[in-house]
């Protein structure tokens, strides 16, 4: 099945039509997406504050990393699910959106980074890198995730 015929199927699907035509379905789904974003970014900010050494300093870095991990992961799953539910009822609108394409590219990079370098550096016990490299690691984490957020906001404002 080609992408085009899949999109066509989406517009014809009765189930997706219910979501698309309902007044409150999309804002409710997007509210889940925002709550997920709050927890995903909130836990990531908390961990990065510790990584930078400017917050949560009474807790070991690896402990903060371990404790927030299930919540970061759960929130990411929630956002992927809610994101799919926003996408599917109107796929060409998003597929053709520049900001959306950028958001997906950034999201992929953010996830890859978070599961590899970031995870390794924040879980290491004792910490294996010094403050300068910690700052670089934190910079990329925050930049990637918040760029995903900004790209998401841009979808409604730009083509």
């Amino acid at each position, binding site marked *: 099945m080609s992408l085009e015929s899949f999109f066509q199927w989406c517009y014809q699907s009765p189930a997706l039509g219910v979501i698309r035509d309902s007044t409150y379905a999309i*804002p409710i789904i997007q509210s889940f997406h925002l709550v997920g974003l709050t927890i995903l970014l909130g836990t990531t*900010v*908390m961990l990065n504050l510790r990584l930078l050494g400017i917050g949560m300093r009474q807790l070991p870095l690896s402990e903060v990393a371990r404790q927030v991990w299930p919540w970061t992961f759960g929130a990411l799953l929630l956002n992927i699910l809610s994101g799919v539910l926003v996408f599917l009822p109107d796929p060409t609108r998003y597929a053709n959106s520049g900001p959306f394409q950028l958001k997906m590219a950034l999201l992929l990079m953010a996830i890859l980074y978070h599961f590899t370098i970031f995870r390794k550096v924040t879980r290491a016990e004792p910490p294996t890198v010094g403050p300068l490299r910690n700052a670089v690691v934190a910079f990329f984490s925050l930049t990637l995730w918040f760029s995903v957020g900004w790209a998401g906001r841009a979808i409604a404002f730009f083509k």
Partner: protein
Amino acid sequence: MPFLTWCQWLQNTPLSTGIRQSDLLFPLIEGSHILALSLSVGLIMILDLRFLGIAFANEPVSKIMKQIMPWSLVGFTLMFGTGILLFMSQAEKAFGNTFFRIKFLLLLLAGLNALYYQMRFYPKMREWDVAVKSPAGVRICAVLSLVFWIGVIACGRTMAYEI
């Protein structure tokens, strides 16, 4: 001066008009408002999860609270600042919007809930500080906090549909 009239005056000030008419300014302020949720509500939610014993349960509540609160206050300052600018730029519409009114009510309730916790449970915190699950009353406050903040977020999103 009736509040509505004041809203109309407010949204016609140069600053409000500038924000409303700018292609970039409104999205920047609104985007900041949404993303600062992480630093404000996000951190408070982590604290609520601690009260419920499902995050950082091996650490005393006071230790978590002491480290979260300063940063959360920075976050709420950002929320307040961007929120005021957003309200100013569309004061009349926001004031008349049902979901905005509910959002404000929920904000008040969240604040009262926090105040209640502060006055009723915080003084005796030492007694239950290290317990994995905080006392039932504290946990109720934590659940209410989560419910109210989720409500605020949902109303904030739904506001745009009436506006």
